């Protein structure tokens, strides 16, 4: 039996297609979501004492687990917060504390997976971009010059060295709607003028020297196999900084690519170190043919790599789950 872990409310086509393949293979599967634990009002418990450890849900039947997500942070418990009366500060504190409680509880729920095959292990999905860069560098992969700073002075020096710089969130890339605009955490180019307008110290932020691109590479990794896709984002000024700034009329060309063995070997080591058996890896290939590692998304979208390159990743994932789920 396979257990599929996801946020029920999140619509995702490539995920649906994996289910199609599982059905086609007559695989047995069930679902699990944080919503079952925090929103549905169903009873559950995890018990631990000197002699036993037990869970109200029987996890022993699951031989293989596909971890695609668990709980949406923004919406969970929102109904409680709608009715609570307290100061904004306390509300923020409360939300943060409950968030921490939830994450500790989740770790215990995931502990039930320990004897099953996990794609990937939820513990490994907590991305830390800066640590990953350090690890990549130690393995011998090239990385963009990176800095976390709150200092205008240091940022100016950094900018002076690299001419063009970008900022991006250390945590997930995301944007959400606020009244008439969006609050976004995304990759953005920083201009000299913007730095001049900063106060002497500001909120600590993550900056990277801009790496000149020939092409961008989005590489899906599954059990030591690589499915690389080259993205020709340079043809279009709109997507030069980040190809996710999508141009709908003229989508960037995306084609299959073959990585050099040496890069594959290093990436394999990186994934092993991170205890990740799957994920999407972003790289840049520079005009002078260097490969620069950017980041890893363990549960990122694979649909458009799959479709553009005709890789049938949905089937590959289903196959992997079935192989381990019997």
């Amino acid at each position, binding site marked *: 039996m396979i257990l599929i872990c996801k946020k029920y409310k999140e619509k995702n086509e490539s995920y649906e*297609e994996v289910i*199609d*393949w599982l*059905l*086609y293979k007559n695989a047995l599967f069930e679902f699990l979501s944080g919503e079952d634990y925090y929103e549905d009002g169903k009873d559950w418990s995890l018990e631990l004492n000197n002699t036993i450890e037990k869970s109200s849900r029987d996890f022993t039947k699951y031989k293989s687990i596909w971890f695609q997500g668990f709980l949406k942070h923004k919406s969970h418990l929102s109904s409680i917060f709608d009715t609570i009366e307290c100061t904004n500060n306390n509300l923020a504190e409360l939300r943060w504390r409950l968030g921490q409680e939830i994450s500790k509880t989740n770790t215990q729920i995931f502990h039930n997976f320990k004897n099953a095959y996990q794609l990937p292990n939820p513990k490994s999905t907590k991305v830390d971009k800066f640590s990953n860069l350090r690890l990549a560098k130690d393995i011998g992969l090239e990385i963009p010059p990176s800095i976390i700073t709150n200092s205008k002075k240091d940022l100016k020096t950094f900018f002076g060295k690299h001419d063009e710089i970008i900022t991006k969130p250390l945590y997930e890339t995301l944007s959400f709607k606020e009244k008439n605009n969006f609050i976004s955490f995304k990759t953005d180019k920083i201009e000299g003028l913007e730095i001049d307008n900063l106060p002497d110290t500001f909120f600590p932020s993550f900056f990277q020297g801009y790496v000149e691109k020939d092409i961008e590479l989005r590489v899906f990794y599954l059990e030591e196999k690589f499915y690389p896709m*080259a993205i*020709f984002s340079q*043809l279009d000024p709109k997507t030069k900084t980040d190809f996710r700034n999508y141009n709908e009329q*003229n*989508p960037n*060309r*995306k*084609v*299959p*690519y*073959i990585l050099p063995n040496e890069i594959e070997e290093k990436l394999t080591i990186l994934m092993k170190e991170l205890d990740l058996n799957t994920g999407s890896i972003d790289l840049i290939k520079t005009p002078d*043919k260097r490969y620069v590692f950017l980041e890893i998304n363990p549960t990122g979208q694979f649909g458009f790599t799959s*479709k*553009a*390159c*005709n*890789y*049938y990743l949905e*089937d590959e994932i289903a196959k992997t789950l079935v192989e381990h789920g019997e």
Partner: protein
Amino acid sequence: MSKKSFKLFANCIVVKGASLATICDLHRGKIYSIPLPLAEFLEKTKNGDTLEDVKEFSLEDQETVTEYLQYLEQNELGFWTDEPEKFPDLNLQWKSPEHINNAIIEIEKLDDDDLRKITTALANLLCKFVEIRFYETADLEKLAFFAENCRSSVIRSITVFLPLTSDINTEEIENLSIKYPRIVLFILHSVQEKGTSFKTDNPKIKLVSRTIDHRNHCGIIDPKLFSIKIPVFTESLNHNSCLNKKLSVDIDGNIKNCPSMLKSFGNLKTHSIEEVVKSNDFQKVWGINKEKIDTCKDCEYRHVCTDCRAYVENPDDQFSKPLKCGYNPYTNKWEEWSTNPLKQKAIKFYSFEEFLKN
């Protein structure tokens, strides 16, 4: 200097016909006609040294080829690279996670029992797309019954054809469109000039004046219907572009590849749909790809075109070209198929057949 190859993007694929070739841009959904020698040149030079290869042409042709390459580059169909081996061809595999992908149901005379059998089969066969056809009367209760019974299936979309008759309950259509989100489109056909008091803003409801009171409306080949996409292209390489993984139940409950085909594999009342679909006999037409079809095999549109095996130029030959295609890949001209003198025999044949059955 290192060699430089001009390469088409892997999802821009050259297809050669008898006297022209196309580049099928499967990514952006566009198709470009190019001369055959250019197609051959592009194939030859993709991993070679393009500037050297161009020199094999006469001086005059060199200029033309160079201009073409510029055009292809500007339109982002290809690019220059000194590492051509890093950009492999697209893997042309095709597969799909269903036993039946789409089904056409001529629902008018089928009873509840039949409909239950059909919806169970569609669920078991993991069918994704359904077309429901009403020709003369629209029975919305029947439609609702069908949609209700589809709830536990993996059906992604249901398209319904119904005649806009004077007694039709248009409010009920609006209701059904909300109650059953899987019904994505209602096509109200045979809309008469004076009967068009019905207006709607519902994007799921479309009115067409064409009379679709009979199955023979199907099978038209038109460039507007070309589908320039990876799954269509790759499926067409080894499978029939219309009938692969298709199932239909005709107005009398006969299980067929398509309602317009004469061959029935048994009736719903006596045969199990699932068993029929499994049989080699039923799946035989699935393998009739364009390479096996007369004329189409020489056509540069063969991997983005649809097909029709029900209405063909020579009704005695199951490998003959679709009757309702006006394209001639030898002269590269599109003509009106219905007035083509060579097709009159087949046209007569099909109307004669239909006449006998009615």
